[in-house]
């Protein structure tokens, strides 16, 4: 009986398991996506169909909807594992908790973040986004949504043991999302005016690196509190 699981293997094992569960439970992938699409389509109905107005507010709408969709889907991140005791087993596993947590967040991002990025250009068409903003939209979503997942996971980890976590969760994590929102929308705006937006993108990248390093530890500590 020997133990020879490397960190990478542990990471991949958990990733594989989460993806497998999600594929057998498809609603989890489609519901947040559907929410994203619905919220975006409501805006033209609310503010009128003028292309100039829509293209002016498109970056903001798409990003705010992405923010909300990400938060909505995150609520489920640790819930099932918490309810059936798998989370305890993870906390007691000899593998470092931050690695396991990172793997779960990555699985979640693959399942909800990536579909969001794929469907965003379609919604941008509906909102008459400036044609030269598309690359910026995709790039900011690609770099920005993982930050949302990582920061949001902290809030989810803190509230997973509570019965009424929903509204509380939004209060905890939406303020933390503000910087991503600001830099992402301004990058898309800049791209629309044919201005360089690498600066904004670099800042979001820096946030991604920072949260990749720090968030897993905060998530791990929060989970230890929640399972207490």
């Amino acid at each position, binding site marked *: *009986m020997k*133990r020879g*699981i490397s960190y990478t*293997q542990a990471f991949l094992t958990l990733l594989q398991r989460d993806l497998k569960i999600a594929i057998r439970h498809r609603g989890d992938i489609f519901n947040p996506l559907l929410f994203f699409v619905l919220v975006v389509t409501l805006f033209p109905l609310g503010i009128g169909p003028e292309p100039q107005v829509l293209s002016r507010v498109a970056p903001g709408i798409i990003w705010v909807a992405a923010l909300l969709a990400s938060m909505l889907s995150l609520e489920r991140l640790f819930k*099932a594992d918490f309810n*059936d005791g798998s989370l305890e087993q*993870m906390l*007691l596993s*000899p593998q470092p908790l931050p690695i396991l947590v990172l793997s779960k967040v990555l699985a979640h991002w693959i399942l909800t973040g990536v579909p969001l990025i794929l469907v965003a250009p379609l919604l941008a068409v509906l909102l008459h986004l400036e044609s030269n903003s598309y690359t910026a939209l995709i790039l900011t979503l690609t770099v920005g949504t993982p930050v949302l997942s990582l920061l949001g996971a902290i809030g989810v980890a803190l509230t997973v043991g509570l019965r009424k976590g929903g509204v509380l969760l939004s209060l905890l994590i939406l303020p933390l999302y503000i910087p991503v929102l600001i830099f992402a929308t301004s990058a898309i705006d800049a791209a629309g005016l044919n201005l360089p937006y690498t600066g904004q993108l670099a800042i979001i990248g820096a946030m991604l690196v920072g949260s990749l390093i720090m968030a897993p530890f905060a998530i791990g500590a929060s989970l230890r509190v929640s399972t207490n």
Partner: protein
Amino acid sequence: MTDNNQQQVLVRANELTCIREDRILFDQLSFEINAGDIVQIEGPNGAGKTSLLRIIAGLSRPYAGEIQYIDTDINQCRDEFNEDLLYLGHLAGVKSELTANENLNFNLRLSGYNDFDSYDLLAKVNLGGFEEALAGHLSAGQHRRTALARLWHTNCRIWILDEPFTAIDKKGVEELEQLFIKHTQSGGCVIMTTHQDMSLITDEVLRKIKLDYRFV
């Protein structure tokens, strides 16, 4: 449990105090658990049995006091302690979306093993033929057995089991008891709670820690 000369202390509790919702569950509780012990934690509902198990496992933090693994605080040597610890709670960490085989594979790999024959292990807990059935479709007893299968492939010395016999039939309980005895004879220890009577593990072998329901 005194006839063993070469007793090694595996877990030591130092003056544990546990407070839940302003009620003191236990105060200044100290004990030692040696290699070779089978310890049953006894007490009425609400006395804090599960809380004590979770504190020993390091899942909950006591209000005061510490748990030592051999002779180090478990917060100082979490990785070593986790390597030597097998904890199964009320909820066993079995995913209903996965098959019995996938569940066992995942749980064992999470604990770091990669040299096991999961079909063989599932056969040992009488789940032969159910290997590829979704855990959600299994009965409560089979569900529980999926989790317990890990006990047959582990080199952890400290087993902490919260109600391991729940939903297990008589024959299964006996098999588990045999396993516990074998485990303690090879230098491990078992800390558990149960409401069921055991046939093989008699009172001479069993050590008990009693918790009373306290009002204050």
